[in-house]
């Protein structure tokens, strides 16, 4: 009864307006792009590609399609497995560095350890630091995080390619910077919104603000933090595969090369490998989340 009353007393009338304005925005976007529905039907050249491409969907290549394969070339399937290895390697290294950046920046971008109920320190020096220094650190950490994650990993890669030239390290950096920003943002938000029950208990025992932060808040937020880390690993693997389009030796590199050589069977092999890899990681991260929930 009371639930029904609560439901009735909610502000209403917003939904229809919201949905309608979303649809209007879509229509405006359609016309501003000057799109033509007829362009959705491929022209003759496009149709040929389409036909040839999809005719190989159920028969991915198991060996190379090229008529001449130089002596000593790795078998296709080994190459595919090797590219998966590289893809995961780049993603893991990128996320490893991102985790480091995310934890450090996330700490400074979180306000739970120096604002409000966590810090009850009466020490005048600490209070001076808190009032004058920490807000500056806090704001600059936030700005840094915003810039890091607002530049897409492929744009970071473009920048690094121009600045340093092609090397595996630049690919890892291109992944680590935006992902570090994202981890820092989400970590700080999760920690700031974690339940405060343990915090109160630890404060009652006389723990220092930092002790309260690390043993009361971070531990309380840990399941969510780790679940997010797993989810990000899946994203990093996808991003790492795409970095191949920029010349790094991950899945995207071989896929693009096969596509440009019109070896569509090989393209499907790489596509299926990618789908299998991402699905596996998807399963892993949701299984991890489920095992934390029970």
């Amino acid at each position, binding site marked *: 009864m009371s639930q029904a009353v609560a439901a009735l007393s909610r502000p209403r009338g917003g939904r229809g307006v919201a949905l309608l304005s979303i649809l209007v925005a879509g229509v405006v976007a359609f016309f501003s792009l000057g799109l033509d529905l007829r362009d959705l039907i491929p022209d003759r050249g496009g149709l040929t590609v389409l036909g040839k491409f999809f005719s190989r969907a159920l028969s991915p290549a198991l060996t190379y399609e090229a008529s001449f394969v130089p002596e000593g070339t790795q078998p296709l399937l080994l190459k595919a497995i090797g590219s998966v290895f590289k893809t995961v390697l780049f993603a893991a*290294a990128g996320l490893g560095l991102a985790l480091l950046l995310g934890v450090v920046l996330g700490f400074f971008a979180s306000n739970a350890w120096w604002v409000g109920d966590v810090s009850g320190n009466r020490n005048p020096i600490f209070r001076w630091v808190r009032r004058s220094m920490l807000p500056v650190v806090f704001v600059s950490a936030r700005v840094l995080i915003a810039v890091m994650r607002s530049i897409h990993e492929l744009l970071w890669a473009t920048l690094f390619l121009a600045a340093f030239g092609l090397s595996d390290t630049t690919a890892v950096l291109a992944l680590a910077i935006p992902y570090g920003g994202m981890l820092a943002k989400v970590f700080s938000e999760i920690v700031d919104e974690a339940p405060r029950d343990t915090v109160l208990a630890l404060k009652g025992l006389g723990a220092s603000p930092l002790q309260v932060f690390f043993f009361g808040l971070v531990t309380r937020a840990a399941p969510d933090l780790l679940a997010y880390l797993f989810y990000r690993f899946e994203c990093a693997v996808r991003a790492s595969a795409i970095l191949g389009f920029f010349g790094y030796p991950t899945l995207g590199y071989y896929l693009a090369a096969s596509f440009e050589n019109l070896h569509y069977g090989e393209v499907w092999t790489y596509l299926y490998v990618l789908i299998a890899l991402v699905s596996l990681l998807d399963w892993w991260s949701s299984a991890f989340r489920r095992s934390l929930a029970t």
Partner: protein
Amino acid sequence: MSTDPKDTGGSTTTAPGSTRWQQITTLRRQRPRRRFATRSLALLLALLVGAWFVGNFHLDDLIATKRIENLRRFANEVTPYPLQGQPFDLGTALTWAHEIMMEKGWSGAGKTLAISVLAIVLAGLFSSTLSFFGTRTLVSPEPFITSLRPPSKIRAAGWRAVVGFTRATFVVARSIPAYLWAFLLVSMLGPTAWPAVLALALHNTGILGKLTAEVNENLDAKPLAALRGMGASRSQIALFGMIPLTLPRFLLFFFYRWETCVRQATVLGMLGIVSLGFWIQDARARNYYDEMVLLILASVVLVLVGDVVSIAMRELIRRRS
């Protein structure tokens, strides 16, 4: 604990062998253990650290002499062209930036925004429709209410197949990154904005569809069972029972995904579709690094604007639901 509270309250030592220590070890032994979670975490961390030892990654390589020279040349070229070798003058820099923005920046940013909006609206339409076909509780021989006569096995399998097929479509759609979808579509549809729009729409349909189907399944079953009891069909349950209940959550996901769409739409331009990324790639190809950096900064502003709008909308939804 069975120990006398006076006993533990009084003792302050936690030396091994004391009652307090015993209590701690018992508590430790009784703590909930999640073997799968612990092992997964250990494996993930081992991967993140191990990759640095296995791969050919050296952060110090970036400050090697050759790279530093590259970097110095880059830093020089990043200075706005009219200011290279000149004393800094804000007016000149602004004129230079204004010209590039008028010629490419604003139109590129507008196109990026339009691509992201159209893509997410399409993804919203597709995924909200498809999500019901992937909802196990709804797509079953007896949704929410069991009948007296058990349904035949063949019918049950048919319904399960519908759910399975929809879920598999979601998996494929979302495991292929938008950039890869766009790469494949450009070769078939040519360099209009469609490949970018469709690529983003497909990838996000997979994500939104899966998330919405899960929300549908976790809804409180009672009101839906009541609808069924009054003779509502499956589509009526979906339209008048599920949509009103899932809508707030769906809109939260919708705006969250739109944020990423803005980011992605920029980058998809690198495949030859006229969004900001096209001009970024173009500037890079011509070695106009000053222009490239300016346009990347424009994309940052665009992304931040998108974030602010999205956060405001999500806050509004949260407050009203």
